[in-house]
């Protein structure tokens, strides 16, 4: 797991995002246990209450579940739900910015389409 913290967003949200990213990338596979609150706290010097707050966002989103006395586990189908969510946000998260930057650079719609074409053809 790689945490890359920045200062502009609340830490508990970043904790939730980083764990979600790891589930998305299948670093944490479905049905597997994820690191404990204490482990994450220790590794990144984050207050355990903050880490727990981040984890609870993922519990509420039905991505991880608490098994009493054992720890937190990735729920079956979690990866698929993240993919679904990200597909829904793709326009807002990426396309809007792409078009806005293209406009500033006077890149036309056709030119942008060509660039996207190029992006798909290079591996």
């Amino acid at each position: 797991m790689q945490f890359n913290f920045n200062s502009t967003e609340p830490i508990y949200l970043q904790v939730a995002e980083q764990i979600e990213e790891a589930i998305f990338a299948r670093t944490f596979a479905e049905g597997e246990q994820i690191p404990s609150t204490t482990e994450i706290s220790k590794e990144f010097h984050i207050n355990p209450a903050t880490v727990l707050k981040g984890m609870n966002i993922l519990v509420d989103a039905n991505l991880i579940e608490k098994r009493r006395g054992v720890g937190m586990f990735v729920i079956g189908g979690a990866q698929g739900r993240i993919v679904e969510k990200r597909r829904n946000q793709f326009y807002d998260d990426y396309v809007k910015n792409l078009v806005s930057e293209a406009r500033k650079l006077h890149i036309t719609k056709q030119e942008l389409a060509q660039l996207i074409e190029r992006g798909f053809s290079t591996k």
Partner: protein
Amino acid sequence: MSIQIHAVSQSFHGRSILKDINLTIEPNKIYGLLGRNGAGKSTLLNIISNRIFPSQGTVTLDEESMNDNDRTLGRIYLMSEVNLYSERAKLNKLFDTTELMYGSFNRQYANDLADKFGLDLTSRFGKLSTGYRSIFKLIVALCVPADYIFLDEPVLGLDANHRELFYQELIETYSETPRTFVISTHLIEEIANLIEHVFVLDDHKIVINGSVPDILERAYTISGPDADVKQYTAGLNIIGEDHLGGITAHYVYGALADDRPIPDTVKLEHLDLQKLFINLTTEKKAAAHVS
């Protein structure tokens, strides 16, 4: 259940060191106490732990006065720069003394920690380097059975590896046995995410007292072309500014103007704790010279 610091002031030879301090320290939380050199941090910690008596005000633990009260004093521990130990005392012996004074002492954990930090418990306290003196005092602080532990400059003289180890052990022991830690340090970045609540002392007064996420939520950097930034931040609580060419950054603490649209040219970001601290505690005279 809490420590209440009520209207505490301290002066020494007519010089004011603390002015009307009011704080609540709750159980099982990690606090940061930040302040510049000479702001009064150590004095405050010494007053809370009954090492010195305040000129005015009271300190209570669960509504009992802490002044010379054995019952309450056994529940708090202050680790400070002052060396209370005899230079000739062997470290092992000092563990015994602490156990006698506090009724119990987690000897097993103390030995484990000494091992991890590479501290030889047969040495004499006087033979230790600055870093190892801090380490020894830290070990004692983490192993006493106190409910409220005050750490004044806990990482003084510790190298980066030992500081890392200390933060990890602090979280480990806190998770296993929740209790309150109040950490006073100048290495703000290292503890910024570790503390839940922060107190900032400036000019002998408390200027910030709140949960870290709440505080940071209210701290902004507003940057962009000079005129646009000035127009947007007019009337807001500007605590500092930076200039680079025609670009201005205003640091704002508090509410933004909801009804004012943010110009496209202006970037709005949150400040981190260290940057907020620097802007809040810079000498106002020096700041005036900048413009």
